[in-house]
């Protein structure tokens, strides 16, 4: 590899799915494997974390209690006292997304939240549940959600379409935000890593210069750790805000 110019950057290849276990038309891909691993890790944390029941918690128990407290406070602060009912849902959602983001940062792993199919399914589940909760709480009065009480009557034909569109665009923005964050982060890793390979193959001077993109990748890894936690938090807190709207109607 003399020139280095013959290397093509193909940063989107890392998102391809491969079967790890297949049976006829049933495909168990690496994304499914990581999903199962993430769920098992959260279950193991809660099981082994809540077993000691010490008054002064050890590290594992403290982690389990902290994660419980954190999501519980998030649900109750945002939704109100009714948040207790939705706490298990918020907890599951937060940790499923968090595990997807964090496990994806392990080298040679796979980020299942980088697929719009996964985040889109999660967002559709959220919006269907929010609508269901709103209809069950308020019945037909749920429709007043699309026309705020204090608004002047003649603005009716203007406000209702805007509110309906903004309601329907929620799952779109919710899913694309998470998916775009993960894809952009991992594509940046791939682009800078290919700079390292290109420069390293070029010459002695290039090999020295290759330290810079490598250093950028190390910094990016720290930044992506922040983004992974932040996007899981944003996904969960927006779900809380939507649930608050459903329970209280504005």
């Amino acid at each position, binding site marked *: 590899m003399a020139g280095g110019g013959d290397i093509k*950057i*193909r*940063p*989107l290849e890392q998102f391809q799915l491969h079967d790890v276990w297949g049976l006829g038309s049933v495909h168990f891909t690496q994304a499914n494997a990581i999903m199962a691993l993430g769920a098992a890790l959260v279950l193991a944390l809660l099981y082994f974390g809540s077993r000691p029941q010490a008054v002064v918690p050890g590290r594992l128990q403290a982690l389990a209690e902290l994660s419980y407290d954190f999501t519980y406070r998030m649900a109750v602060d945002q939704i109100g006292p009714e948040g207790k009912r939705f706490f298990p849902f918020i907890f599951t959602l937060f940790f499923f997304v968090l595990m997807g983001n964090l496990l994806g940062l392990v080298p040679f792993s796979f980020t299942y939240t980088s697929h719009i199919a996964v985040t889109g399914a999660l967002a559709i589940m959220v919006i269907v549940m929010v609508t269901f909760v709103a209809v069950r709480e308020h019945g037909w009065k749920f429709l007043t959600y699309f026309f705020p009480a204090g608004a002047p009557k003649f603005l009716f034909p203007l406000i209702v379409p805007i509110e309906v569109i903004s309601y329907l665009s929620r799952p779109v*923005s919710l899913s*694309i*935000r998470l998916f*775009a*964050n993960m*894809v*952009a982060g991992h*594509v940046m890793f791939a682009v800078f890593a290919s700079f390292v390979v290109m420069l390293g193959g070029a010459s002695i001077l290039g090999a020295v210069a290759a330290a810079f993109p490598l250093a950028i990748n190390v910094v990016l890894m720290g930044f992506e750790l922040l983004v992974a936690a*932040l*996007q899981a*938090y*944003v996904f969960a*807190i927006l779900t809380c805000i939507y649930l608050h709207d459903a329970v209280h109607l504005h």
Partner: protein
Amino acid sequence: MDVAAATKLGAGIAVIALAGVGIGIGNIFSALVTSIARNPAARDQVFGLGILGFALTEAVALFALLIAFLILFT
């Protein structure tokens, strides 16, 4: 103009949107600094809000970046 040059130009034009995101994130943090300077006791509550606003604004930047990646690599 050939297609290869046009895709590169298109990707460059797509990320012009980042200017607006830069202004937005700057606004968020300037407001955060001002509010913490005025009332340092509120730091814990305001900081979380600022980070939430940052994440929501950053997502807009990533939409533009994603379009640029799609133009370049697909």
